[in-house]
C-alpha cells in the first residue's frame, strides 16, 4: 500500500474498500494536527477537529476527482472545518467579504525569504501567531509550516494567487511589528 500514491488509494476507497483509508489517514494525521494546532491556536480541540476532517473526507470521497491531487482536496476540507470552528467560537473576526479578493495585486516573490530566513521566521511566527487575525494566520501556517506554494494555498483557501501573496506579505509585516514590540532586543530583517 505504501508504494501507491494518495490518488491511487483514494480510487480504492471510492470502490468500496475502506481499509486503505487508514493509510491515507496515517499519511496526513501529523500534517492535519500541525495545521489545526497552529491555525486554531490550540484553543480548540485540534484532535476532535482533525477527526471530523477525516470523517468528512470519507463521507465525500466519491466527490473527489482522482485526476487531481488529493492533498489540496483534503486541506480544503480541513480549511472549511477549521473556519467553522472559529466561527462557532465567535471570538475572532472572520469578515464575510474581503476587499483583497476584489482587485488584482502584483504577485510578490514566494521563495526568496523562505529559504534564507525560514528558521528565524518560524520561531517568530510561533511566538506571535496568536496575535494575527485568522485570515493572515492561515496562509502563513500553510506557507511556512505546511510548505505549500502560493498556488496550493490559493486552492485550499479558494483565493486568487495574488491575494495569497498579499496576505503573506502583510502578515509578515504585522508579525515583525508585533515581534519588535514584544522582544525589542531581538532584531529580524523580514525582507
Amino acid at each position, binding site marked *: 500500500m505504501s508504494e501507491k500514491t494518495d490518488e491511487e488509494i483514494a480510487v480504492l476507497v471510492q470502490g468500496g474498500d475502506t481499509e486503505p483509508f487508514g493509510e491515507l489517514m496515517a499519511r496526513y494525521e501529523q500534517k492535519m494536527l500541525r495545521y489545526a494546532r497552529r491555525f486554531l491556536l490550540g484553543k480548540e480541540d485540534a484532535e476532535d477537529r482533525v477527526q471530523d476532517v477525516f470523517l468528512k473526507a470519507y463521507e465525500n470521497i466519491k466527490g473527489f476527482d482522482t485526476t487531481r491531487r488529493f492533498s489540496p482536496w483534503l486541506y480544503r476540507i480541513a480549511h472549511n472545518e477549521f473556519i467553522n470552528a472559529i466561527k462557532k467560537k465567535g471570538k475572532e473576526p472572520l469578515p464575510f467579504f474581503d476587499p483583497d479578493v476584489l482587485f488584482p495585486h502584483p504577485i510578490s516573490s514566494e521563495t526568496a525569504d523562505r529559504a534564507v530566513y525560514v528558521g528565524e521566521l518560524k520561531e517568530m511566527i510561533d511566538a506571535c501567531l496568536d496575535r494575527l487575525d485568522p485570515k493572515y494566520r492561515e496562509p502563513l501556517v500553510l506557507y511556512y509550516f505546511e510548505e505549500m506554494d502560493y498556488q496550493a494555498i490559493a486552492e485550499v483557501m479558494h483565493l486568487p494567487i*495574488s491575494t495569497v501573496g498579499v496576505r503573506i506579505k502583510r502578515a509578515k509585516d504585522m508579525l515583525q511589528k508585533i515581534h519588535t514590540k514584544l522582544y525589542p532586543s531581538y532584531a529580524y530583517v523580514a525582507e
Partner: protein
Amino acid sequence: MSQSNTNIRDKVLDSIKTGRVTMRPRWHFVLRAAFAIVGAVFLSLTLLYLASFIVFIVHYNGAWYVPAFGMRGLRVFLLSLPWILILVALIFVGILEVLVRRYTFAYRRPLLYSAAGVMILVMVGGIAVARTPFHQGFMRRAEDRHLPFAGGMYREFGMRKMDHIHKGTVNEVNENGFVMRGRMGDQFTIVFTPQTRLPYGYDFQMGDMVVIFGDRVSSTITAFGVRRIEDGESRPRKPYIHMMPPPGFSTP
C-alpha cells in the same frame, strides 16, 4: 507514533466499520453539480433577459438618445434609467458570482475580473437581444393586455412619462418645426429655436420616428434637441416633405 494519533485513526475507522459514517453516493455529487449548473444557467438567462429589457425600455422611452444633447441630456438620461431593475440585475450578478466562486476558473482570478466579465457579457448579450423583436412583441401584447405574465412590468416601465423626453412620429412639417403624433395618439407642436440641436443636414419626412428633448407646456414642446430614430416599428411612410433649416439653426 503518538497515542492521540492512533486514537484519531481508530475512532474514524471504528465509525466507518460500525456504519456511523457512510460514503455519500456519486449521484449526490453529480446532482449537486447539476443543480449548480442549472442554477447558473437560469441566473445567466434571467440576467440576460433583465439586461435586454433595460436596454429595450431605455430605447423605447427615448432616453437612450438624449446623452447626445450634452450635459443636460446626460443628466436626464441618468435620471430616466430604471434604477430598480439595474439594482436587481446587480444583485443577480452577485448571486451568480457566489454560485461560481467555488470553481477554479472563478476564484483564481480577482473578483473584479470575473464580475466585469459577467457584466460585459450580459451587456453585450442584452444589447443584442434588445435589437431583436423579442421585447417589442411582448410590449405590444402588454399594451393590448394580452400578456398575463410580466405585462404589468412592460406597461409600468414602457408607459412611464419621461420628463423632457418625448417620442413620436412626424405628422406634419411646418416652418417653425413640426407636429408630432405621440405614442398614445396625442398631437404635439414641436417648436424649433435657434438653440435647437438638430441632426446634421436634417430632412424630416412625415412618418419619421423622432425623439424630442425639450420642455413641454400643454401640447407645445420647445425642442432643445431632436433626433431621428429607427426603432424597428413598422409604420406606413407618409409622402416625403423636404425641409430646409431656417437661418441660424444649429446642427450637432
